[in-house]
C-alpha cells in the first residue's frame, strides 16, 4: 500500500471532528455512515467521499467551517478525495494520471474525436457526402459506412465497459470488499437512492445549491441529465433492435421510438448540463474544490455538445448539412465512450457502489 495522500489525511482529520459533533446527521447518508465508525481507514474515507453527493448542506451548517481554525470543508475535501479515488482505481492503472488534468484531456479527446471522424469520412467516402443531401434508407451509412460505425462503437463502448468493470472491482476491494452474499433488499434500496437522488434532498427541503438557502434546483437538473442520458441510451438500444431484429433501417420517422427517446433525451440532457454548469458558475465558491472543476465543466460541455449535435442532426438530416453534423456527432460520441472511464462519469459507478455498501452496512448495524 502506497503512503496516504495529503487529502486522505485531511479527510480523516475532518471526519474525526465531525464524528465528535454529528450535528449534520440529518442531511445525508454520509454522517450516519460515519457514526458507524470510530476510526477511518483510507478505504472508509474513500467510501464516505463517494457516498457524498456534494449537496453542501454540511458546509453551510458547520460551526467549524472556515474561517474557524478547524477549517471543516467536507464537500471540497471529499470532492478531491473522490477524484483521487477515480485515479487510484482507473484501469489500466497508468491512465489514472488522466484525472490530474481531466478538463484538458476530456476536451482534447472531444476535439480529436470530431477531427478524426471528419478525416475518416473524407478518407473513406467521397468527401462530397459531407455537404450533399442524403435521403432515404441507409442515408447515414453513406456518410459513415455501417461497418465502421458499428465497429468503432463496439470498440470504444466495449473498452469503456471493461475498464469500468475493472475499476469497480478494484474500488469494491479497496473500500472493504465482502459484504456477504448478494441480498435483494440493499440492492433495491441503492437503486431507489439513485433513481430519486435521495441524498440530494438535504433531509427533505433540498440542498445548499447556491448559498445557505435551500433549493432543489441541482437535484432536478441532475435528474434531467441522468434521465436524459438514459433516454438517449434507450434510443440507441431501440435503434439497434430495429436494425437487427426487425430490419427497420434508419433514418426513422420523428414519431418512432428511437427518435422520440433521442429527442426528449437530448432536450433533457441540454437542460441538465447547461443548468448544472450555470449552478457551478454562480454558486458560493467556499465548499467547491477548484482542482476538480475543470473535469466537471469538460464532461458537462461534452454531454451538452453530444445532445446539441444529436438534436441538430435530427433537424438537418434531410439537408446537405447532415453529413457534417453526423460526423461531428459520432466523433463526440466515440470520444465520450473512450474517455468515459477517465472522466467525471465514473462518479455514477462509484456512487452506486457506495450506496449499495451503505445499504448493506445499515442492515448489518441493525442486525448486530
Amino acid at each position, binding site marked *: 500500500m502506497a503512503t496516504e495522500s495529503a487529502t486522505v489525511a485531511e479527510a480523516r482529520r475532518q471526519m474525526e471532528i465531525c464524528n465528535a459533533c*454529528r450535528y449534520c446527521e440529518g442531511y445525508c447518508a454520509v454522517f*450516519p455512515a460515519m457514526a458507524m465508525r470510530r476510526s477511518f481507514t483510507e478505504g472508509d474515507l474513500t467510501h464516505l467521499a463517494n457516498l457524498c453527493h456534494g449537496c453542501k448542506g454540511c458546509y453551510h451548517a458547520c*460551526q467549524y467551517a472556515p474561517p474557524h481554525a478547524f477549517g471543516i470543508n467536507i464537500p471540497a475535501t471529499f470532492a478531491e478525495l473522490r477524484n483521487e479515488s477515480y485515479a487510484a482505481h482507473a484501469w489500466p492503472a497508468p491512465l489514472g494520471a488522466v484525472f490530474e488534468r481531466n478538463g484538458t484531456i476530456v476536451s482534447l479527446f472531444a476535439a480529436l474525436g470530431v477531427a478524426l471522424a471528419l478525416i475518416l469520412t473524407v478518407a473513406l467516402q467521397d468527401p462530397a457526402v459531407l455537404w450533399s443531401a442524403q435521403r432515404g434508407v441507409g442515408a447515414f451509412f453513406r456518410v459513415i459506412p455501417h461497418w465502421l460505425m458499428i465497429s468503432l462503437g463496439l470498440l470504444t463502448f466495449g473498452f469503456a465497459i471493461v475498464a469500468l468493470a475493472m475499476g469497480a472491482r478494484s474500488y469494491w476491494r479497496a473500500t472493504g470488499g465482502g459484504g456477504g452474499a448478494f441480498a435483494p433488499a440493499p440492492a433495491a434500496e441503492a437503486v431507489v437512492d439513485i433513481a430519486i437522488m435521495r441524498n440530494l434532498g438535504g433531509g427533505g427541503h433540498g440542498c445548499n445549491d447556491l448559498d445557505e438557502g435551500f433549493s432543489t434546483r441541482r437535484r432536478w437538473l441532475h435528474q434531467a441529465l441522468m434521465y436524459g442520458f438514459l433516454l438517449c441510451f434507450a434510443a440507441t438500444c431501440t435503434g439497434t433492435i430495429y436494425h437487427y431484429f426487425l430490419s427497420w433501417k434508419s433514418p426513422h420517422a420523428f414519431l418512432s421510438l428511437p427518435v422520440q427517446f433521442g429527442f426528449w433525451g437530448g432536450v433533457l440532457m441540454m437542460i441538465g448540463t447547461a443548468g448544472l454548469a450555470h449552478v457551478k458558475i454562480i454558486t458560493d465558491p467556499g465548499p467547491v474544490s477548484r482542482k476538480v472543476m475543470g473535469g466537471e465543466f469538460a464532461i458537462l460541455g461534452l454531454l451538452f455538445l453530444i445532445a446539441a449535435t444529436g438534436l441538430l442532426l435530427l433537424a438537418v438530416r434531410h439537408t446537405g448539412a447532415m453529413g457534417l453534423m453526423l460526423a461531428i456527432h459520432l466523433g463526440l460520441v466515440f470520444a465520450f465512450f473512450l474517455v468515459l472511464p477517465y472522466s467525471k462519469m465514473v462518479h455514477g459507478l462509484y456512487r452506486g457502489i457506495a450506496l449499495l455498501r451503505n445499504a448493506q452496512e445499515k442492515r448489518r448495524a441493525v442486525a448486530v
Partner: protein
Amino acid sequence: MVDLTQTFDVLIAGGGNAALCAAITARRAGATVVVAEHAPKSMRGGNSRHTRNVRSLHHGPTGVLTDSYLEEEYWDDLRRVTAGKTDEPLARMCIRASEEAPKFLESCGVVFQPSLSGTLSLSRTNAFFLGGGKALINALYRTAEALGITILYDTEVQHIEVKDGFATKAIVSHRGFPARIKFKAFIASAGGFQANREWLRKYWGDAADNFQIRGTPYAQGRILKDMLASGVQEVGDPTQFHAVANDARAPMEDGGLAMRLDCVPFSVVVNRDVERFYDEGEDVWPKRYAIWGRLIAQQPDQVAFAINDSKAQHNYLPPVFAPYEAGSIAELAGMIGLDAGKLEKVVADYNAAVQPGTFSAQTLDDCRTEGLTPPKSHWARRIDTPPYYCHPLRPGITFTFLSVKVNDRARVMMADGTPSANMFASGEIMSGNILGQGYLAGFGMAIGTVFGRIAGEEAAKLVRN
C-alpha cells in the same frame, strides 16, 4: 452603505437567536429594525452558532418531539438544576411560552429533525435543528434580510446613553469606525461576558487563564457592564458560570460542542497532584456533565486527567483529539507529566476497591467501589487491560450567570425597581433571571426565543404608540 443618520424604531445589540427572534418579531409588527452584530458575517450568531436544540413544552407528540413534556415536569427539571435559584413566575411563563418556540422558528425558515445518535437521548424534551445552530442562524438571517431588517456586521454596541431609565442613543464601532445609532427602543441581546478573560480574572485570578471559552469570542459583556453602570438592576451571581469538561487540548476560544468529553463515567479522574476528587460514576452523564467543568476549575492548575483502559474505549463518543495511549500506567503517567508511582497507586487502590457487578454503560449499573474515598458509584471496572488511555481535561465555559434584571414583558428593570422606559433584553444577557445556576440542555435557546419574541413585540408596541 447603510444610512446611520436615520432614527430606527428599534436597535438590537447582538446577533444570535435571541437578537434575531426580537428583530423579526418587531419587524413583523411594523417597526424599522437595525441589528448590530459584533462578529463578522462568517462568525455571526453568538453562542447560538454552537447550539443544537430548543427545549419545548408540548402536550402531545409533534413532528419532531415525542410523547409529551408538560409544565410541571419542565418546571421540576428547572427547579432541580437551579436548586431554587430562579424566579418561579418568570420561569413558568417562559416554560409555557416555549411551546410556541419551534413553530415560531419554523415560520422563520428553521428546519427541525428527529434526533438520532449521540444526543443524550433528548428527543422527548428537545426539538433539534437540522444541521445545528448555524443552520438555524442562517435561516433567521435570511428571514431578517427578506423582511428588510438592517443588519450591521462587525458592529459593536459600546455604550448606551441612558437618562432616567430612558435610552437615548448608542455609541457603536461600525467596521472599525466610531458611529452613533439613534433609536426609539433598545433591545439588549448581546450575551454574557464569558469571553472577557479580564473580567473573569476579577473573580478567579490566574485560574481564568486556564478556562476555555466554548463559544463565541465576541461575548465580551461590554453592553452588560455598560447597562449595569447606567443604573440597571443586576441579577445572578457574577462569579459563576456554566462549564463542562473539555479536552485540555481544545482551542482556548470557540471550540464548540465537539471539544466536550463524555469519558468521565468510564474513567477515574485525577488532578495535577494525582488525587481523585469526585465520584466519577455518581449519575448518568447527561445529569452530571455540567458539574465537571466547575469541579475541574477548582483543581490546582485547572486541569484533570481521565484514565481508563481498552475496555472503556467504546463506551463514549469518539473524541476529536486522540487520547494518550501507553502499555503501562507508569508509562502513561510519564506521557502526561504525572508522578508515575502515585498514579500506579491510585489505580491499584481503585482496582482493589472495585466490587463485582454487571456493567451497563447506559444505565445506573451495580459496578461500584467499596471503601474508596471518594467512591465511584457506578460503571466501576478494574483498569487492567492495556493499552491504557488518558484524556486531559480543562473547564470549558459556556456562559456566565450575571444578567440584567427584566420583568415578564422583557423590559429591563432599573436599580430603583422601576421598569426602563424603552430598554428590553433577551437571551443570555438576561437568562440569569431564570437560571441562577445549573443548566438544562436547550433551555438557553428557549429563553432566547421566548424573550426575544416578547422584547420584539413590546418594543414595536412602544414605538407605534
